């Protein structure tokens, strides 16, 4: 392989004044977490401007690039070639690099961080440009709008050449943008929503509503597998499971069928808000997409949102199901999500859910019984699990409340 290093460019980080060091540290940690899993022989380092990975001969560049493309906070990835600092070596490597590219116009851009280097930048550019022109047919130089730029950097240890960059995921390094409590059902959407939020730098806790025996206990294994896949983007993953059966049954006892789903979502958000508050998490997140199902119309969102003042992040809100499925396949959660075991058994699925529910109606149904007690009970009985290295969930002991 001609390349010796990868240079990873930070994206929106350059706008982050004094926090920059923290952001870069988090980014390098998440890169190294991926490398440790997939490429144990590689390690990323960083300085104030970039992160670097020294490549090894046996590594497949395309596979490594696609792994890096998933990591939030990397704007651009540039493979570079290390060269001896004499003109002959520079020429040889420049040609090797440029012959791989397709372009009709180019320029050479030289930087000399090592100012003691005896040959001037202009001289290097002229020599290399001449060599490229002479060896690659039907191309010309265009210094204003070149299709391809050969970057040459002369450092004290060696020279570095590059001519192509690959786009990264963008966004912020994992965990830098604050926290959110993601409502995770086990379907296709919520893992994709989680991925998009991870990419934006959010740290997520996960909340799942279980209604045994109406939902299968096997769903927990499915969630573990989903979270294991998502653990590529966040180091420590916690899943909180809410026992929801009693509330569910009360809803169905006191509510007319079309409003059941709306009330169920309202109860879920109430529980999620209280729990998030307890855990000092300032926002909630869901995998809802507008219009996808009856409970996801804007009218329905309004009736549901009314129970909480917390911001509800809905990263999928304007995405098509097909787009969502495409991302799910890309990040590897799709095949897990389509396994059977519903989050909510068909028993609780109304035949004709209300597509434009009114809050007034919701309040009317909710006045029929004292649900607060059940909500308190549900929050009280939440069980928390931590995802382990091997992909299993470990039940955490409840912290003693003071």
């Amino acid at each position, binding site marked *: 392989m001609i390349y010796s290093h990868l240079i990873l460019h930070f994206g929106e980080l350059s706008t982050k004044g004094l926090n920059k060091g923290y952001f870069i540290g988090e980014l390098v940690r998440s890169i190294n977490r991926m490398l440790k899993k997939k490429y144990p022989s590689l390690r990323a380092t960083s300085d104030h401007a970039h992160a670097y990975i020294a490549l090894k001969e046996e590594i497949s560049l395309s596979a490594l690039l696609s792994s890096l493309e998933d990591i939030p906070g990397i704007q651009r990835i540039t493979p570079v070639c290390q060269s001896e600092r004499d003109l002959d070596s520079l020429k040889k490597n420049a040609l090797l690099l440029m012959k791989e590219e397709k372009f009709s116009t180019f320029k050479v851009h030289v930087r000399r961080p090592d100012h003691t280097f005896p040959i001037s930048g202009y001289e290097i550019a002229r020599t290399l440009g001449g060599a490229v022109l002479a060896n690659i047919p039907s191309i010309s130089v265009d210094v204003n709008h070149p299709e391809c730029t050969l970057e040459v950097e002369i450092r004290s240890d060696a020279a570095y050449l590059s001519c192509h960059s690959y786009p990264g995921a963008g966004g912020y390094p994992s965990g830098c943008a604050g926290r959110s409590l993601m409502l995770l059902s086990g379907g296709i959407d919520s893992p994709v929503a989680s991925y998009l939020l991870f990419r934006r730098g959010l740290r997520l806790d996960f909340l799942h509503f279980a209604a*045994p*025996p*109406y*939902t*299968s*206990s*096997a769903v927990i294994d499915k969630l573990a597998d989903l979270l294991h896949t998502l653990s590529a983007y966040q180091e420590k993953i916690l899943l909180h499971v809410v026992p929801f059966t009693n509330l569910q*049954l009360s809803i*169905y006892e006191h509510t007319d*069928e079309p409003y059941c789903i709306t009330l169920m979502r309202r109860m879920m958000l109430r529980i999620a808000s209280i729990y998030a508050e307890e855990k000092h998490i300032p926002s909630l997140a869901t995998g809802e997409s507008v219009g996808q199902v009856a409970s996801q119309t804007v009218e329905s969102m309004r009736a549901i949102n009314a129970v909480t003042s917390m911001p509800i992040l809905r990263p999928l809100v304007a995405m098509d199901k097909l787009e969502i499925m495409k991302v799910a396949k890309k990040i590897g959660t799709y095949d897990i999500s389509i396994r*059977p*075991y*519903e989050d909510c*058994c*068909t*028993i*609780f*699925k*109304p035949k004709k859910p209300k597509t434009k529910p009114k809050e007034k109606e919701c309040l009317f149904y909710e006045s029929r019984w004292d649900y607060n007690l059940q909500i308190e009970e549900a929050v009280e009985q939440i069980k928390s699990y931590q995802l382990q290295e091997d992909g299993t969930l470990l039940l955490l002991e409840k912290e003693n409340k003071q």
Partner: protein
Amino acid sequence: MLYFDSAATLPVKDSVLSFYAEASHRFFANSGSLHEEGRKAAKELEKARRDILQTLSLPLSYKVIFTSGATESNNLLIKGLARRYAGRGKHIITSLGEHPSVLKTCKQLEKEGFSVTYLSLDSSLGAVSPSTLKEALRKDTILVSLMAINNETGAISPLEEYQQILSSYPKAIFHSDFTQSMFKGPLTPPYQAVDALSFSSHKLGGIKGHGVIVMKEKLDPFPILDGGGQEYGYRSGTVDVPGAMSVAFALKECQKEEKEVTNKVTLIRQKIENYLLEHKEDYKVHSFPLTSPYILNFSLIHQKSAVLLEYLSSKGIAVSTVSACSSKKEEASAPLLAMGESLALAKNSIRLSFSSLNSLEEVDTLLMHLEEARKTLVDRNL
């Protein structure tokens, strides 16, 4: 754990396990090896075959082939016999209530150019009625595969009546899947009624991963696995001699216990059935004139079977359903559908199956939880 899923599998019996452990040390050699140890193992292997035939009171001329389980046994017999005797005819008869290892195998043979008749089950018998079989038989029928006791419903097939009909069709080989039928009481059809039978060891409290074919000497199925020609050339691969010995041993143990265990599970089944019949508005018991005392199948009229399974599972009680808790992939019981039961009832059936491990006290606990579930679980037709 109260285990009412014995038809799925059983824990290995202590006696079988210690027998197997000892045999593994003493007869470890390859039964194909020519040295003293190899010959010793080969002798034990032949003795295991004889033991099985003796236990089943079948002539010693029959062939016994050891496989990896009943699924492989069914595959080898059905594919092997059909392919071998395709020259005599290409028609096969089976029923819609068979185990997938029979049904899917027949589907595969259809792709290979065989024509297969899938018989419905008679709703009162729970099995293929002899007259239906008679009507389906053709001159070119070479194979009839009908199970002895249905694994989901426990319905017992009148194999002797089938045999009588088949006696005027000498070309048609009669195979029966006996997986749920080895020493399961006096109602079990006789092993002599068929030309070939298959079963597995783990459903008898034997070691998992072992199956058997027993067939008349004249039968010559075409092998699926080619190789060193072990097992008369029908099933190549180094033979697990201690495993084969353990099957023969487990079978003998079952024979010894048959009467006692059958009496016990008959009482257990009766008690549960009585309870279910008291609540006809909620349960439909699938009972037939000839039913195995080891299996009790009923449908929930108002509730979902997956929910009841989940409920009982959380109370430490293991039962069996066809479909999982899923709206997308709801399966229904093939035999119940095959006997004309409604889709809703076929989807929401529960199978309880019994063994010597169960007791009448366990039944009290089961019934207590069933009653609790009957009263509290939410209606599926909301």
